[in-house]
């Protein structure tokens, strides 16, 4: 990973949290493999998995309304559960989250959603909307690529993708690829989070949702969504405000977000679309008192993204998709001493670090659907412009960089009977970190109707942050094998073993061996249980010693109830961060959140819903670094009107 990056250059390029992370990684302590905390976490893992496995067998299921009506509710016989087949034939380790699941947890931003996904670790700097860091299978957060409708929102100057900037209400689904996905996406060493936004509601000229919530410390999240279509033209509009005095001291936020999508249906199943995404957040992000840091950090983030695309079939089997995008990303970080309000010592003469980024790009993709294979050939081009008012942490020397990057790729999915093979290659010209060749190959095998096997191996890369000087890329070779099965009645289980070998000219070679396990039950009396566990053992290849600061155990558990009128979700999560002992991290037990909702009025096209959330029910402490504790117990509630 980037343990040996030049930390003297880093401060102005990354926000301060990134700085802390990089500093702690640079220390590279050698830790014994056995720690007392492991016993606790192992117990928790065993308990959660046991809960999942011991779920009561189901003997009923929700009936179809029509079928019930025609049978006079006399034929609701129980049926045996079968194993879910994979959601797709993809060989990669993919997780999909949909809008109903997001609403069930009263999520404010994408960060809240990702908290519940096995294999992902999120570090929050505060409450909703405050900076959050995403780690996939314990790879570094700068290697997680986040896309909104296929366009990257990742900061080119820091490699950071702030998932707290994306409001949850605009999300239709999130597709997460865990593990290197460079053969399709280019720079994607850790994985890809692709946010697919809501589409226009067809069949109604106007429909919408108004949501308002309020919680402790005047934490409010209000949004209005409008959607509809007239003829071939459809629209989806969303505006929202997220404000808080800070559920943690000094982490206030004042943010507003807007999203618009227009879609026009062309003849012959083609489509023309345009999107615009705007998000602005003024917040307090970090408050690290003296004597350790005496630091107050206040970022002001602005991100805008516009895209235009067209998809059109060129024949029965061939489809062309072309799109263009432009994004503007500005981050102003102000650093002051808490004690006297003076400029923080690292920020000599600079009250505010300013980073402005503009990315203009285009993508083209040809999709050929053969009788037994799906061939995708495409290219991406991006022109990056970066302005930074300082090149390092001690001198003031504003600089501008302009970089052109392009890549071409070819991916195929060949299906022969129950077996699908997915080879892929991509070539990228990065200009700043050499040329990159990223191959991959994977396969799925539908072993039985209840069991699917999956294997995937790929080489990927991650780019260093774009600064005044260039650094070589970081490489990874990932191999993942796994299975999905519901051979056990009423239970769906997915297990994955992964091996990630990471290296680079400025990075010590690491080997991360791990496993991921997910278990979910089908609903029993409208209630289901889900658990997830991820274990990663990261060692230095040279001496075999464990490397700190990569999460070792991650546990997620969720108990869900939904009878269409009342719903409730109880979630628990535990991340054994395995941070350097000097960080004084604290991560015992699980953090529990309870989300409740009730639909009070329900009509054909309208409804009124109230919801309530209790965060960190038992006031648990779970943080990587004692300067950034997690919020304690806090409550919020609200209502949602659909029309």
């Amino acid at each position, binding site marked *: 990973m980037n343990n040996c990056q030049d930390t003297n250059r880093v401060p102005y390029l990354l926000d301060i949290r990134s700085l802390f992370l990089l500093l702690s990684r640079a220390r590279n302590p050698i830790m014994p493999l056995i720690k007392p905390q492991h016993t606790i976490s192992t117990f928790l893992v065993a308990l959660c998995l046991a809960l999942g496995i011991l779920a009561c067998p189901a003997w009923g299921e929700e009936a*179809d309304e029509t*079928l019930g009506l025609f049978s006079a509710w006399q034929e609701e016989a129980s049926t045996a559960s079968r194993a879910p087949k994979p959601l797709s034939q993809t060989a990669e380790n993919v997780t999909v989250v949909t809008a109903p699941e997001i609403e069930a947890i009263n999520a404010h931003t994408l960060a809240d959603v990702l908290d519940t996904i096995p294999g992902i670790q999120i570090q929050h700097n505060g409450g909703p909307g405050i900076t959050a860091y995403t780690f996939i299978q314990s790879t570094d957060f700068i290697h997680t690529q986040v896309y909104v409708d296929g366009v990257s929102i990742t900061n080119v100057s820091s490699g950071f993708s702030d998932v707290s900037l994306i409001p949850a209400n605009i999300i239709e689904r999130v597709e997460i690829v865990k593990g290197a996905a460079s053969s399709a996406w280019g720079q994607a060493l850790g994985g890809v989070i692709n946010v697919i936004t809501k589409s226009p509601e*067809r069949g109604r000229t106007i429909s919408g949702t108004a949501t308002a919530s309020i919680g402790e410390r005047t934490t409010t999240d209000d949004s209005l969504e409008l959607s509809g279509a007239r003829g071939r033209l459809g629209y989806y509009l969303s505006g929202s405000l997220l404000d808080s005095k800070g559920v943690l001291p000094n982490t206030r936020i004042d943010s507003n977000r807007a999203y618009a999508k227009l879609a026009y249906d062309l003849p012959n199943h083609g489509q023309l679309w345009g999107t615009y995404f705007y998000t602005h957040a003024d917040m307090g992000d970090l408050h690290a008192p003296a004597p350790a840091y005496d630091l107050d950090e206040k970022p002001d983030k602005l991100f805008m993204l516009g895209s235009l695309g067209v998809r059109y079939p060129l024949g029965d089997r061939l489809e062309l998709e072309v799109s263009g995008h432009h994004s503007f990303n500005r981050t102003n970080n102000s650093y002051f001493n808490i004690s006297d309000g003076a400029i923080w010592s690292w920020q000599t003469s600079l009250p505010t670090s300013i980073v402005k980024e503009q990315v203009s790009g285009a993508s083209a993709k040809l999709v050929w659907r053969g009788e037994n294979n799906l061939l995708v050939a495409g290219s991406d081009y991006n022109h990056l412009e970066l302005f930074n008012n300082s090149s390092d942490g001690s001198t003031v020397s504003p600089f501008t960089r302009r970089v052109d990057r392009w890549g071409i790729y070819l991916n195929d999915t060949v299906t022969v009977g129950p077996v699908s093979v997915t080879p892929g290659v991509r070539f990228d010209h990065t200009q700043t970190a050499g040329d990159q060749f990223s*191959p991959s190959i994977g396969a799925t095998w539908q072993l039985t109707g209840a069991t699917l096997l999956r294997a995937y191996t790929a080489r990927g890369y991650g780019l260093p942050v774009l600064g005044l000087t260039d650094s070589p890329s970081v490489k990874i070779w990932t191999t993942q094998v796994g299975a999905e099965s519901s051979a056990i009645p009423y239970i769906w289980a997915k297990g994955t073993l992964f091996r990630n070998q990471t290296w680079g000219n400025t990075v010590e070679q690491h080997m991360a061996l791990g496993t991921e396990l997910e278990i979910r039950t089908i609903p029993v009396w409208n209630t289901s249980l889900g658990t997830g566990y991820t274990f990663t053992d990261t060692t230095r290849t040279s001496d075999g010693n464990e490397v700190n600061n990569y999460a070792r155990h991650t546990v997620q558990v969720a108990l869900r109830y939904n009878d269409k009128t009342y719903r409730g979700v109880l979630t628990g999560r535990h991340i054994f961060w395995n941070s350097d002992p000097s960080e004084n991290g604290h991560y015992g037990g699980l953090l529990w959140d309870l989300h409740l909702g009730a639909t009070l009025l329900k009509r054909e096209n309208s409804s009124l819903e109230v919801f309530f959330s209790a965060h960190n029910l038992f006031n648990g402490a779970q943080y990587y670094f004692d300067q950034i504790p997690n919020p304690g117990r806090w409550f919020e509630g609200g209502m949602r009107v659909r029309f």
Partner: protein
Amino acid sequence: MRILAAFIFSCALLFPLVADAYDVLVLQSRRDPAFDEALSGFRTGRNLSERLIVLADYVDVDITRIVREDQPALVLALGDKALEATRKLRQTPVVALISLGIHNRHTSHSNLTGIDMFAAPERYLTLFQGMRKHRIGLIFHPAKSGWYVQQARQIAQRMGIELVLREVSVPRDTLFHLSSLAGKVDALWMLPDSTAVTRETVEAYFRFSQEHNVPVVSFASAYLGLGAAAVLEIDRTELGRQAGDMSSAILKGAEASDIPLAYPHRVLLKTNPSVLKHLGITAEQAIMNPRE
């Protein structure tokens, strides 16, 4: 590296082009004999390749993604959940069966067609005519069955039958409206309306029938045992066959938007002799319609 690259290209380009695609993606809400009957009818006499997905078998299933990747020529949706799962599909034709939501959704989804779960209104009205019933009570939810009631009213006028209509917006209103029909109707027409007829209110229809000596004509044989005098029941196998004809037309190039929603072709009249006898209606009157 070169060996791997060569292997990947070989896989991509040289794999045998064995046909493994399919024509129809069958989405079934859950496992149920009613769906099996419809599906067997759909398959009769046709050799369409298909992939069957039973939604209840899955914790989660992503239909949009499956359709995007598998590219079936059409989707056959059996049941409400299956129809709901196709909501996001806008390009792929969808033929829907055994769902009461087809009609309302059809107006907004040009790629959707299918067969309603209502027998044609004239079939019921002919039956009432045969029973010599001329004031028919009918409780319905305007948003769910309004379109059907409107058609029924026009046909009833031509046939000299008066429909005494009561609109409900929530199930509990049904009890009130039933009591308001006392003395004003000589038969009750029970529609497949999930607001007007619920598990909680269904008995009230038959209580009304007994108390006021009027027959209830319903839509499924399951209600005969509860006290319905007669039902017009949809033949599910024929329903599937009818859907198969629609699908064949689509596979031959017709647009789903050009194929209108249809009433079920084959509807069977079934009666409860003891109820009819109690009400003084002869079986001959009930089955006078020669088309049954």
